[in-house]
């Protein structure tokens, strides 16, 4: 009984993710797209928690469904948009994009289902402290590099947005 419930929750989360992701790419209005993207990120965060990655789930909620979504909505509001018609190449382009995307999904899906894998698993007892321990011992160099990357991205974004001569 708990097994069925466990599967049901997964399919519900998957439905939220796929439906809102489809909404993002189908929607003509960019504000709607951005809000559906938030819904999709919330779904992904729920999936992280479902997969016993509590810290990642919290980070997803704060960074993606909080930060990135607000940034995207701000950008949409700052920029005036023309008509959201098909791209150069007319409707053929959209059809080719659908063909490429479904071919990709088909090939990857076939590989995944053909993949033999022995059911095993690892669940951390204390997610946050184990991650913190790894981050500050074995993986301290990537951690510092990520800090430098974020700082330079921040400065780069400010300089780009201000423009020549104003900075």
């Amino acid at each position: 009984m708990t097994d069925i419930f466990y599967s049901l929750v997964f399919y519900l989360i998957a439905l939220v993710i796929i439906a809102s992701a489809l909404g993002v790419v189908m929607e003509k209005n960019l504000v709607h797209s951005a809000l559906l993207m938030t819904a999709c990120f919330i779904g992904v965060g729920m999936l992280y928690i479902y997969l016993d990655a509590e810290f990642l789930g919290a980070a997803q909620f704060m960074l993606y469904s909080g930060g990135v979504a607000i940034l995207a909505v701000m950008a949409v509001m700052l920029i005036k948009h023309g008509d959201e018609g098909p791209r150069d190449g007319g409707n053929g382009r959209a059809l080719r994009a659908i063909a490429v995307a479904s071919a990709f999904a088909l090939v990857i899906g076939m590989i995944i289902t053909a993949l033999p894998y022995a059911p095993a698993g690892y669940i951390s007892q204390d997610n946050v402290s184990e991650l913190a321990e790894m981050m500050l011992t074995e993986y301290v160099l990537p951690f510092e590099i990520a800090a430098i990357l974020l700082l330079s991205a921040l400065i780069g974004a400010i300089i780009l947005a201000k423009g020549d001569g104003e900075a």
Partner: protein
Amino acid sequence: MTVGLTHCLLLAAVLFAIGLYGLLSKKSIIAVLMSIELMLNAVNINFIAFNRFTNVSDLTGQLMAIFSIAVGVAEVAVGLALAYRMFHEHGTVNVDELNNMKG
């Protein structure tokens, strides 16, 4: 059937394919950036699913996902600033009209 690695990987593949479709068909550069974000999230799902369902003994996969999220957020900040700059210089964010570098 209980949920395992295959389910999560299939979900991530579908999410990635949806992002790929948006990347190829959308006209506004902001919509293209949003599609790239969907693809990044699909990859992060893979990291965490492999960490959860395969024979490992620590949380390396989740740690990689954290670094991947950091890179993704940096990318979106710079990308949206670039889009804003493009709109200032050219008055458009339509990727078909941004062809200054075309020979």
